[in-house]
């Protein structure tokens, strides 16, 4: 009999897992349970910015799941997992049995202990519902005033979306710098300086003591005595893994569910993927949670392949934080914060260009970049740095070359033969398949204009 694969969650880890199971096994039974329609959290800010409609953030619909022969239960939650009976209990009371289970329930925002956090117009910005609620609250306002509490990665993704709408923005961060878990102090100082020049209010090293209602609007009271008026307040002070459903189940956890290189928990038929999974880290000895899209996708594909009976091993995720901060691209990779590493730094404070390479002997083990988001050269350099880190290539004498020429990553990349190593590698042992679900049915295809036809016809055989 076909195995029953049960997947809990509706983010990229879950959808990639079910697509991968189907890729390897046409007959497996698959059930997906998620409380919101399957969607991509990373796309929510673009909905918030007014660039795309809500549906564009969705990663599947009824017809798609029907075609994949997946039973979908959207709007339902799992309350409890029983690894002994191989069953889950749904909040509606149903019990479902499984042969393989994937827990991909992700994470959710923590609620900071601030008086006034429950006022209407004070909320996190994390889910489809949160996005809708910000759009509703600001509908008709010409220039909503927004205070973001927390200057971390998520706060800044939201900030960028609101900046595109030209809203009036202020950021409050308890720590002494912005993006404390993504950039070092020097890079962060450049980002804060840039944001100030763009009209964003930056308040670091102080915390919110109270949020008061001020006749519908809010007044955000800071520890340093400042008080910021706001139409809405976004709480982005951190996230936590959604582990409630496995409380007391015997599944081993630390900050998340501890998984091996096949994404299995201590129960071999129970897998975890995405933000909730604490898995192998390419640049660390300990398992880590890398709550980012690319890791969620990799986790989902590795888990899916293994659930379908393959033996696919994950070399580990590469920590990679990338945020477009109102036109300033910021990125950090690997052990960007390693105090033991040998460091090379370029800091152009006038143009907000920052490059930091961190080394362990001749191996690059981390990097930090900031620069103009429209600088094509920098974006491709960032890609190449990612390639160097991902292949863990020793750069030999190219290390000294990069010390003298930090803007010529390309030559070191080519000379060290990085691309060659990457060309034949795949995660699951076979070429990646394109996803079959596309918003509005717009399947990507090459398009060439009349200029092309005219051009290629000029060459005589």
């Amino acid at each position, binding site marked *: 009999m076909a195995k029953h694969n049960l997947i809990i969650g509706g983010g990229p880890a879950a959808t990639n897992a079910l697509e991968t199971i189907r890729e390897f096994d046409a007959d497996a039974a698959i059930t997906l349970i998620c409380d919101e329609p399957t969607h991509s959290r990373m796309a929510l800010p673009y909905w918030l910015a007014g660039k795309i409609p809500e549906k564009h953030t969705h990663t599947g619909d009824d017809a798609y799941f029907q075609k994949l022969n997946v039973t979908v239960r959207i709007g339902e939650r799992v309350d409890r997992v029983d690894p002994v009976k191989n069953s889950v209990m749904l909040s509606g009371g149903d019990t479902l049995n499984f042969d393989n289970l994937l827990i991909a329930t992700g994470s959710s925002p923590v609620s900071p202990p601030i008086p006034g956090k429950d006022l209407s117009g004070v909320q996190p910005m994390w889910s489809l519902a949160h996005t809708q609620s910000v759009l509703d609250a600001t509908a008709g306002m010409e220039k909503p005033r927004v205070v973001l509490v927390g200057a971390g990665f998520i706060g800044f993704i939201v900030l960028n979306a609101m900046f595109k709408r030209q809203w009036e923005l202020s950021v409050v961060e308890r720590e002494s710098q912005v993006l404390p878990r993504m950039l070092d102090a020097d890079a962060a100082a450049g980002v804060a300086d840039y944001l100030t020049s763009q009209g964003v209010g930056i308040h670091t090293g102080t915390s919110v003591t109270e949020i008061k209602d001020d006749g519908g609007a809010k007044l955000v009271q800071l520890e340093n005595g400042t008080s910021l008026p706001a139409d809405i307040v976004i709480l982005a002070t951190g996230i936590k893994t959604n582990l409630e459903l496995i409380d007391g189940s015997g599944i081993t956890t630390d900050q998340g569910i501890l998984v091996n290189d096949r994404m299995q928990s201590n129960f071999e038929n129970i897998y975890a993927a995405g933000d909730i999974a604490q898995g192998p880290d390419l640049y660390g000895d300990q398992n880590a949670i890398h709550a980012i899209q690319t890791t969620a996708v990799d986790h989902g594909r590795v888990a899916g392949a293994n659930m379908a009976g393959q033996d696919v091993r994950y070399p580990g995720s590469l920590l990679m934080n990338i945020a477009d901060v109102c036109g300033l691209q910021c990125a950090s990779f690997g052990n960007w914060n390693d105090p033991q590493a040998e460091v090379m730094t370029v800091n152009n404070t006038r143009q907000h260009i920052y490059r930091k390479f961190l080394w362990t002997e001749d191996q690059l083990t981390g990097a930090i970049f900031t620069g103009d988001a429209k600088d094509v050269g920098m974006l491709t350099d960032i*890609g190449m740095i990612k390639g160097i880190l991902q292949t863990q290539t020793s750069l030999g004498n190219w290390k000294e070359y990069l010390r003298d020429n930090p803007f010529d990553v390309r030559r070191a990349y*080519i000379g060290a033969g990085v691309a060659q190593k990457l060309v034949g590698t795949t*995660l699951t042992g076979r070429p990646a398949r394109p996803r079959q679900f596309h918003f509005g049915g717009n399947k990507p295809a090459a398009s060439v204009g009349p200029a092309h036809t005219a051009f290629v016809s000029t060459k005589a055989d």
Partner: protein
Amino acid sequence: MRLFVCVNAGDNQMAKMLNIVPEKCTGCMQCELACSWVQTGTFQPSRSLIRVNVFDEEASYAPYTCLQCDEAWCMTACPVNAIGIDDATGCKVVSESLCVGCHLCTIACPFGTVFTTPHTDTATKCNLCGGDPACATTCPTDAIVVTEGDNAGDWFGLWAEKVEGNHLSAMDGTRSAN
């Protein structure tokens, strides 16, 4: 190292790809002009999807663009499924109407061959011009040729050795002179 295995285009049809012959490249940049013209309607090398690596110090040149790799990091990373495989060629293509401009593919691509179109803020990459690449048409020395099969990455290793050998030996010279 595993040999390059290409994605099948359609049913059992070999995927097309560009094979680069660095020894033949003179660094004339015609491919960049041709690419920017047919892809964007401008003669703007900065918007070309193929980039000639010019390493003047060792007189080493080679055009470099998407290798249409098997893992397709750009495609798997995309949060809105805006990158797919063109049935006609097997190459990975971006749908401008689906791309939201998150830049994740440009950074996820470990080859550095996915770009951003500045005025639309959407991703763009080599789509092999739908099967008849303008860069190969225009190359006066046949340094860029379209192939079908599994050798697309092979040139890369030899060229890397050349760059590595020539450049580092030159650099050693300067260092010992210091």
